[in-house]
Structure formats: C-alpha cells, structure tokens
C-alpha cells in the first residue's frame, strides 16, 4: 500500500472519530444548554408571577379594600393578578403558559386539568417536594414545565376560602357558593405551573449544531486536502524522484542526474547523502577501471 493511502486512511480515521466525538459532545452540550435556557426562562416567569402576587397582596389589595365593600374586585386576588399579567404576555408569546392550577378553585379557569392534578397530588403527598420539573408534548410542540406548590400559609386565604358564610358576600355573588371553599391551613391546594416551549431553543440548538458540524467538516476537508498536497509535494514527489534516480544509478546509469537539491530538510539531507554516495561510487568505478 502506498504511503499516501496509509496516510490518508489514518487521517480519515482520525477525522471521522474526531467528527463523531465532537458531534456527540457538542450535541449533548447544546441540548443541555437549550434545556437550561428554557428552565431559566421558566424560573424567571415563576419569579415574575411571585413578584406580581406579592405586589398585589401588599400594594394593590389595600387600595381596593373600600371597593371590596361594594363589589368583589378580582384584581385584588394575587392569583388573578399573576394570571392576568401572563395573559398579557401571552398576546405576544402564546406558547408561554402560567397557571395557578387548583383542585378546588373559586374561579373555574384555575381548575387543574388531568396532568396538572397529578402534579398537585405529588406536592400533596410529599410535603418536602418544593419544585417539579418535567417535559410534556403540547399541540405546539414539546414544552418544559416548572411547578411549585400553592400552600395555604396565611389566614387571609381562609377569609375567602374557608366557608361560604365567612367569605365576602360580594365574592360569593360573583363566583357562587359551589366551589373554592373548604380550604384548610397548611393544605396544598394547587400548584403554580409555568410551561415554556422548548421548540425554539431546541431548534436554535439544532441550527447551532449543524453550523458547528458543517464548519468542522469544512475544516477537516481543508486540512485533508492541504496535508495531501503537502505530503505529495514535500515528500512523495521528491522521494519518488530519488527512488527513480537511485534505480537508474543501480542499473549503471551514472549520468542519471544530480540527487542534490537546495532543500535543507530531511529529504534534502538524504538527497545530499545519496549524491555523495553516487560521487563515491563514480570515483570507485573510475579507480577500478584504471
């Protein structure tokens, strides 16, 4: 097998192996980064929801206390405020979802769906679980969800949700007396669930991966071509010439030409040595003739 074939075979093996390893590692890293990005978005949304709830409780509700004596103002409810805020967000980003999924809500729009009920029940069964992260398929693609429990920690919650009699009459007028009552202190009544689409970050990761792999392939190809060119011009062609001249000299053609080249690299040194060897051989032959 020719040297160039051996060389190319090894080079190709290294390139393929490097390509596969780099592809695997970068794919995993990009996917992890995409998921982490989605998770960070989800956490940010959750924090924004909590901030909205807190703002409503501490600043908005006190301003509406008087109005609550006349009619129930849902804007005074932290869950309503957080949900409405994300409703505005969804006008531009419809795939982002925030829900205060509740098993027994006053407002029917907060009622937990099947999979949300499962999440809430996990929180209800294991009081130490404070966060759940998962993925699920949605009509618009895969989505990551982040959930945290909603627990009755304040008596203020029970002012509206303990019994119908204790609840503000204006609230009962609005939501009726069938739902949203019977909550107990420290009970997990629902979960805040943020759902963030993974499609876009994943697609971005795939694009980045493809770009990276294509760039890597181009670089490998350029290196491959360049190395082959260099190998041919700097090694193979010169060695072939030396071999041809040595072959001529060995057959007695002492006028086959000069081995010597101007190059001072290893092949140049070899050429100079072979040139000296040829000179010695010519002189030895002349001495034998005399």
């Amino acid at each position, binding site marked *: 097998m020719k040297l160039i074939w051996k060389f190319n075979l090894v080079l190709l093996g290294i390139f393929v192996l490097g390509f596969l390893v780099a592809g695997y590692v970068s794919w995993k890293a990009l996917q992890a980064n995409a998921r982490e990005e989605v998770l960070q978005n989800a956490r940010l949304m959750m924090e924004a929801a909590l901030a909205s709830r807190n703002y409503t409780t501490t600043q908005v509700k006190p*301003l509406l206390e*008087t*109005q609550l*004596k*006349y*009619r129930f103002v849902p804007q005074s409810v932290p869950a309503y405020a957080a949900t409405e805020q994300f409703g505005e967000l969804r006008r531009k980003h419809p795939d982002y979802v925030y829900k205060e999924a509740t098993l027994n809500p006053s407002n029917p729009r907060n009622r937990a769906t099947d999979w949300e009920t499962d999440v809430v029940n996990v929180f209800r069964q294991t009081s130490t679980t404070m966060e759940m992260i998962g993925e699920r398929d949605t009509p618009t693609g895969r989505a990551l969800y982040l959930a945290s429990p909603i627990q009755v920690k304040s008596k203020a919650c029970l002012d509206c949700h303990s019994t119908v009699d204790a609840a503000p*009459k*204006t609230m009962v*007028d609005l939501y009726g007396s069938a739902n949203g009552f019977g909550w107990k202190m420290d009970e997990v009544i629902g979960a805040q669930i943020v759902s963030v689409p993974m499609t876009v970050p994943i697609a971005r990761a795939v694009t980045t991966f493809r770009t990276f792999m294509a760039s890597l392939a181009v670089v490998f190809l350029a290196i491959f071509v360049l190395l082959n060119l260099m190998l041919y011009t700097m090694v193979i062609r010169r060695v072939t010439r030396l071999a041809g001249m040595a072959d001529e000299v060995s057959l007695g053609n002492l006028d086959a030409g000069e081995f010597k080249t101007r190059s001072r690299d290893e092949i140049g040194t070899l050429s100079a040595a072979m040139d000296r060897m040829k000179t010695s051989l010519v002189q030895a032959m002349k001495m034998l003739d005399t």
Partner: protein
Amino acid sequence: MSMLQCWALVLASLFPALAGAADIGVASLVEGNPRVLRGATWYKLVPWARLEDGDILSVGERGHVLAEFAGGTALSVVGAGSLYLEPRAAKGADAGGPLAVTVPEGWLKLAARTPGFRVRLASAEVTSTEGILVVHAQGPALELFVESGSARLAALLPNGNAGPPQDAKHGEHWSTAEAGRFVAVARAPKAFVDTIPRRFLDPLPSLAAKDKPAPALVADGDVTYAEAEPWLGGRDGAAFEKRFAVRLRDPAFRRAVEPRIARYRSWDRMLHPEKYLPKPAAPQQGAQ
C-alpha cells in the same frame, strides 16, 4: 311698620353675613364648575375655598366637591346635586356639635368622625358619629349604604319631625319603600353599585392637611327666585326668607316673587306694607 323699618330689618338680617362667618371647613378638591351660595350671592367655588355656616354648594352634572371639616369629618358630592351647611350657631346648637347638612338631592359620601354629622334629606334624617356612608337622595327616594361604622336613620313625619330612629349597621343598604318605611338588605344591591359614582368606591382622600391659603372667591351672580324657591319652601323657609330678603331690591326677583307672595309673609309685609297698616276703626252706628 314703615317701608324704611322693613329695609332696616333686611340690613340687620344681613349683618352676621357681612361681619364674616367663621370657617367651618375647606373645599379641598373641586372639579367641574361648582358654585357656593353665600348670603344671596353665588361664588365660583375654587380649590381650598373656605366653607362657612349657611353655605349652599351647588354641583353640576360633571362636578365634584370634597369638603373637609374639623376633626376629620369629610363629605364629597359628585354629580348634579346641592348641599346646605346648616348654620349651627344660628339654631342655638353647640358649635362643636355634629355637622348638619341638608341634601335635597344628589350623591353624597360622608366620612363621619366625632362629633359626626346629621344629614337632612327630603324624607329622612341620617346621623352618624363614626362611619362612612354613601347617600343617594332623589326627591323622597333615598338610598343609604353604610360602608363602615354605623348610622341612625329616621323617617321624617308629616309634621316635619324625625320619627323613631333605626340603626343601620356596617355593610347594610337602606332604601325607601313607602312613606316612613325603609327596606334594609345586608349588602349593596347590584343596581346601587352600578349607579354609584365611580370615585365613591374609593376612600375619601384627606387633603386638608396641606393647608393651602384661602383663595378670594369670585362672585358669579345673585341667587334667582327659581334657585331660591326650593329652599324657601323647605323646612328652614323662614330663615331663607330672611336671608334672601335682600334680593327683593331686584325688580326681576320681585316680579318672580309677586305671584307667590302669599307664601312669604315677611316679604309680603315688606313689599306691601299697606296691607298690614292698622285698619281704621269702623264708624260706630248711631254715634252721632
């Protein structure tokens, strides 16, 4: 009584007003073009104008006035309506006693602090010492919502006196059912909430602490007979006859009064003293 004596009486009746009544409150928030009737002259009501005993506030359709009084008592009138700050001293009442207002009609929100207030309506009288109330008076129809605290509600009897009072508690809505009777429900009905002025759903602001200097009021004409007539025909008619007597110098006012002069005995006496001259003794028959 001669014509001269009558006019001297009119001038004498004006003296307390000319001497300058004491400030009892301040109009700390004024919107629209409300006016205040002081004596027999209308003035444009402007923010931080001082209010005096006997002032009548008139608020237009899009108007709003917040009046704040000593001790934290405040009242707000929104939309078309009028309100009369009864002169307590003139009635011999304790100047430190409850604020007394007459509201023929309109929407009114009151925040009462001790010594509270007494609101006279066409068909009832409402009193409260600690409470926040919303009152809607429309002729004999009355709606009262006790936002906080408590109030006492008494129907006005045909003789003008207040009937037995009823306690209105926090959160209750009272309305007139038929003469002298009220209906109370435990919450504000939707129809009431739907019609209540939007700003009454919020607490009355407290601005008087800013204590801005009193602006000079600009006169906006004299009271006409049409404007005076409801007050002349009210419970304090005699007092208003005395108060508006100065307007009898205006021929237009006199012309408007003349067809109904029989209602106003003191004015009749001024305008037609000849009717009240001592009748000459009838010649005795046979006294030859």
